[in-house]
């Protein structure tokens, strides 16, 4: 079965449902959302809104196939075709993540023992960018994000929370992903760095990326958002 998307739609969730059954805690069921539909177009930045626990991160993770929705589909425009991440084989999901779908999680989780500069360079070299050019681009971005050059040779495990978050952002923004999923990318950053990240997001969406993001900071929301989607209405009674 091949699905289709309208010309400039990059991502669409259809009748998406997510719940958790905690089997080892008395089988409690948490219904997070059900029958959820949303659509994001090229150059749009959709803001997920709703109180803590509304399911914003769960939705974003479901769009990345990191969480497994109970039903529905997540259609992604991947190169010249449309892939349903809820039905795709794992290797296809990984292909979509490599080239099309970038995700900045709330916390950095990386391969241990790999130097920061390599973490930021690798996404480019695996896509065939010349290693010298890739390193150059990685360095430029790390500098822009104010990671001192003295730290580049170190793995980020011992970095401060804000430094780790900026490495996390660099690893995603070093590529030009057509679709970006951002879970509070500015949360642990100071004013200057928050502004830099806001600029990076704005540049990405002006260049045509479709973005879905969660931002607690109202200023960031106002600066980058083009539309908002409120999850509190979708929350089902447990």
């Amino acid at each position, binding site marked *: 079965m091949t699905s289709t998307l309208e010309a400039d739609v990059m991502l669409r969730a259809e009748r998406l449902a997510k719940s*958790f059954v905690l089997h080892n805690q008395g089988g409690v069921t948490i219904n997070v959302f059900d029958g959820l539909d949303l659509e994001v177009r090229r150059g749009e930045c959709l803001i997920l809104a709703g109180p803590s626990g509304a399911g914003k991160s769960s939705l974003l*993770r479901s769009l990345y196939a990191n969480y497994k929705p109970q039903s529905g589909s997540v259609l992604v425009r991947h190169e010249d075709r449309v892939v349903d991440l809820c039905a795709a084989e*794992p*290797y296809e999901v990984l292909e979509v993540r490599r080239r099309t779908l970038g995700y900045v999680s709330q916390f950095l989780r990386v391969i241990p023992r790999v130097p920061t500069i390599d973490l930021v360079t690798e996404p480019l070299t695996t896509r065939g960018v010349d290693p010298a050019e890739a390193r150059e681009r990685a360095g430029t971005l790390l500098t822009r994000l104010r990671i001192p050059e003295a730290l580049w040779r170190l793995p980020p495990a011992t970095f401060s929370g804000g430094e780790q978050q900026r490495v996390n952002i660099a690893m995603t923004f070093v590529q030009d992903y057509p679709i970006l999923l951002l879970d509070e990318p500015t949360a642990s950053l100071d004013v200057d760095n928050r502004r830099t990240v806001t600029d990076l997001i704005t540049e990405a969406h002006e260049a045509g990326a479709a973005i879905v993001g969660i931002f607690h900071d109202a200023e960031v929301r106002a600066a980058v958002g083009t539309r908002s989607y409120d999850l509190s209405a979708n929350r089902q009674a447990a």
Partner: protein
Amino acid sequence: MTGSVRDPLLQVRDLTHHYGRHLGCRDVSFDLHPGEILGIVGESGSGKTTLLKCVSGQLQPTDGSVSYRTRDLGPVDVYGMSEARRRLLMRTDWGIVYQNARDGLRMKVSAGANVGERLMAIGDRHYGHIRSEAVDWLERVEMDMGRIDDMPGTFSGGMQQRLQIARNLVTKPRLVFMDEPTSGLDVSVQARLLDLIRGLVGSLGIACIVVTHDLGVVRLLSHRLMVMKGGQVVEHGLTDQVLDDPQHPYTQLLVSSILPV
């Protein structure tokens, strides 16, 4: 043309193995694609080794089939082919890294010969070439070149595992099976070995099936994860999805009983 990258390299269907009346594993089916790394986790006795042996041509399953896409003939039933052909396949296109290096190495010949031997087995007769390939591979697994003529029995556990890896990869296999490749080693040695495996397997695009107790190992290495319990697969999917949003009660228990990686 014997298939595109999208075609599976290995197809396992309804595989069941009984040891007499005792169940080893039951009704296991999966596809493995070129370059894909599949992790298999599960408690002791859940059938991981049994499954790996059945899939890798070492143990004829009681039921079900294993089909491998060969370079020349396309998909071939692993247990339908002649013994000689299966052995050739295992020596050339496949590699097997055992938990116990003694099962995977020849302890009575030198490190260099352990690697060179695999090349001779596929018909390489040029001594100079064999020697240089062996040296190259021992370097790639970070072996001390001063030890190349020593017997594996004089090596540490970590060195023996690295030698096994060199011995297996020298023939440029398309598929490598590993059963607990890092267990029994010191934590720091484990870490180094894992980095090595990740780097080599990734850069060479080798498909891999890795059996392990260690969820940290699969988080790091595998694209896909299969969780076994009581001989059966209880959950199977994208590694980070299975670990971050486990569906089965047993997987939830397994994930919650370890520290976050």
